[in-house]
């Protein structure tokens, strides 16, 4: 009996000692966070950063470590949809969230109604930066009641139209980007250009990838999209949405579409092999194109029909579960600083959300050799300046998917426009 007790006792003591040790470590790590200056030697702490793709932050972490030698930064990446679903689960269950998390523009409105799940960045003095930001971008990161600052913007997705000069040449269309931009001041003119492309019968190539992204761009150019200012879903009644849907249908019926869903593997192959000649291009998508290695100068960049627009763009936020909010807030501050946003624009094509930078030569005059020396700095900043911000609701991504699926059903010849629209609206009505 005594022997038995002994056998249990030893591990138990060991475990509790370990537990005590761990708690001691935890509180030890916290103390300097609330107290001393950053340069003061303190115990090592670890910050995790949760992202949904490569944000090209690695060099910026190194810079952060220069002023914070005790901070170790670990990056976690998940697939786009999973990232945001995981985050919601983690916030609800109260465990597992990273110290710093990225929240994309289509999702941020799902988090602004629950400011108590996040540290208020105002408490860490980051509200001082409000004047630097695009007004609408700043407001996206503020809680609905206005009391709390949840996320600081990183980039915005100024819109453009990417095109292939080689295929345009074969079709007898102009290849110079200024002349190409002049071809399509409006979406109707874009479709007319597409018809000319189809008439020229270029071997193995359609005019564009698929109608989904065009539909999205056109909706996002409108003053009101899927949601009204009170965050009610108005997709069914908003004439702008139906207009964009009809434009997509027209693209299909005129034979412009290669019937490819954006970001699918065959779409990726299509970028490299040139099965389509144009695609809607937010700033960050130039990185996607490069990843497919179509070859330097294969793709070029022109203005988007309808003038300006935004697609995507991200915020960085601090879930309440984090143990080191002070350091994490300092990290956000660095990642979104002017210098960082310039670097990220030239390195990763992330268009800054600080309008002062749009007149900064490093951004404005930036030309990208990969896209035939396209002045992408000017194209994207023009697009961002021309943007009319619209209310983005919490389930905007789901609404877009429902209607986008409808367009693809038309594209695959399964339904006509009316059937697809009716089913899309039915799907939208299921979104709560």
């Amino acid at each position, binding site marked *: 009996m005594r022997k038995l007790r002994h056998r249990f006792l030893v591990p138990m003591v060991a475990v509790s000692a370990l537990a005590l040790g761990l708690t001691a470590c935890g509180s030890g790590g916290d103390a300097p966070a609330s107290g001393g200056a950053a340069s003061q030697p303190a115990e090592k702490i670890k910050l995790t950063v949760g992202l949904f793709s490569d944000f090209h932050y690695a060099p910026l972490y190194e810079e952060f470590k220069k002023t914070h030698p005790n901070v170790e930064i670990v990056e976690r990446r998940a697939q786009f949809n999973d990232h945001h*679903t995981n985050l919601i*689960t983690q916030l609800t269950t109260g465990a597992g969230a990273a110290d710093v998390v990225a929240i994309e523009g289509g999702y941020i409105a799902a988090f602004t109604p629950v400011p108590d799940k996040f540290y208020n960045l105002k408490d860490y003095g980051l509200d001082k930066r409000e004047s630097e930001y695009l007004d609408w971008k700043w407001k996206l990161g503020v809680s609905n009641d206005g009391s709390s600052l949840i996320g600081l913007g990183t980039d915005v997705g100024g819109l453009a139209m990417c095109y292939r000069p080689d295929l345009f040449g074969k079709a007898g269309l102009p290849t110079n980007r200024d002349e190409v931009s002049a071809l399509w001041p409006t979406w109707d003119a874009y479709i007319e250009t597409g018809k000319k492309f189809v008439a020229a019968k270029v071997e193995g190539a359609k005019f564009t990838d698929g109608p989904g992204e065009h539909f999205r761009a056109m909706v996002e150019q409108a003053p009101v999209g899927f949601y009204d200012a009170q965050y009610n879903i108005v997709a069914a009644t908003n004439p702008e949405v139906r207009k964009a849907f009809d434009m997509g249908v027209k693209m299909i019926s005129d034979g412009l579409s290669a019937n490819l869903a954006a*970001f699918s593997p*065959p779409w990726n*192959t299509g970028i490299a092999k040139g*099965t389509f000649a144009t695609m809607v291009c937010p700033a960050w998508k130039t990185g996607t194109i490069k990843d497919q290695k179509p070859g330097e100068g294969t793709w070029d960049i022109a203005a988007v029909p309808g003038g300006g627009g935004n697609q995507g763009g991200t915020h960085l936020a601090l879930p309440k579960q984090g143990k080191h909010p002070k350091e994490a807030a300092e990290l956000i501050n660095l990642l979104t600083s002017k210098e960082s946003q310039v670097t990220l624009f030239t390195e990763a094509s992330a268009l800054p959300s600080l309008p002062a930078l749009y007149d900064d030569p490093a951004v404005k005059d930036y030309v990208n050799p990969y896209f035939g020396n396209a002045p992408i700095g000017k194209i994207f900043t023009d697009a961002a300046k021309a943007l009319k911000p619209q209310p983005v609701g919490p389930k905007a991504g*789901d609404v877009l998917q429902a209607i986008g699926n409808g367009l693809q059903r038309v594209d695959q010849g399964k339904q006509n426009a009316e059937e697809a629209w009716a089913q899309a609206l039915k799907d939208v009505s299921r*979104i709560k």
Partner: protein
Amino acid sequence: MATRAPERLAAVPPNRPVRHRRLRRHLVHQLDVKGSPYAYVAPFFLLFSAFGLFPLAYTAWVSLHEWTLLRDEQTFIGLENFRTLLADDYFWNATFNTLSIGVLSTAPQLLLAIWLAHLLNRPLRAQTFFRVTLLLPNVTSVVAVVVIFSQLFGRDFGMINWVMSLFGVEGVAWNEGVLSSHAAISTMIMWRWTGYNALIFLAAMQAVPRELYEAATIDGASGFTQLRKITIPMIRPTIVFVVITSTIGAMQILAEPLLFGSYLITGGVDRQYQTLSLFIYENFTKLDFGYASAISWMMFVFIVLVAGVNYLITRRGKGGLT
């Protein structure tokens, strides 16, 4: 000992320590005999309660609510979720797809597995090599399998369409049709699981007495007749087992259709290959937890039903799981 009154014990002081010790030893022994077996099996039941029973019960509880994450209050709505579910076209569509993919993948797979096992059961050079090879597809990551198969089944640059074009056959948009997408997904499942099931069959076949085959050979029975008349009846319990596990697996297909549609949670733009698991996943990502839990429970009921029906069918005749 238990009949002795405590006062009597106290009345005999010199005996007390001895008796006391004996009593204690007896109690410990009793406890050991009665209690230890429970202690030994406890870990399983504890784990099962934590990871099997509790989630099951909790899901049932959630399914009776309008339960959305990021909102703190959850309203009790009774069976409303199930009522909505039974009237939901998309649910029945997902059920149909699941059964269709299940049948398309399981039936040919098991026939193929029996045939492969039969081949391997004969005297063969490099036996171990072939057996290991059979298991290889199963240890490959499902993601890798689906990514490669999706390339093969591509519409524009897929190898299958390319081969078909050599014979002058028009390419198929595998992703778009109901039957074509089900066939593509079933192929992936078959590729992955046929070898695994073949090995289970092989193990069962090795237990069949050799003399039966020898006698049959002397009587002039062909290989196929031997398979039909000796092997299959002798391994019937294993067949029942494999049919049931495969059915359960097929009812829960998620990764293949999800990846085949490049992460489109609706399983094709017309939900043409959205399975039940994918439908649950869709509603979870929409954060409609009550509804998703209701579907999970319906799926559980379906699995029990389908497995039961399969059990009855395969058990018919001689033999059985017992």
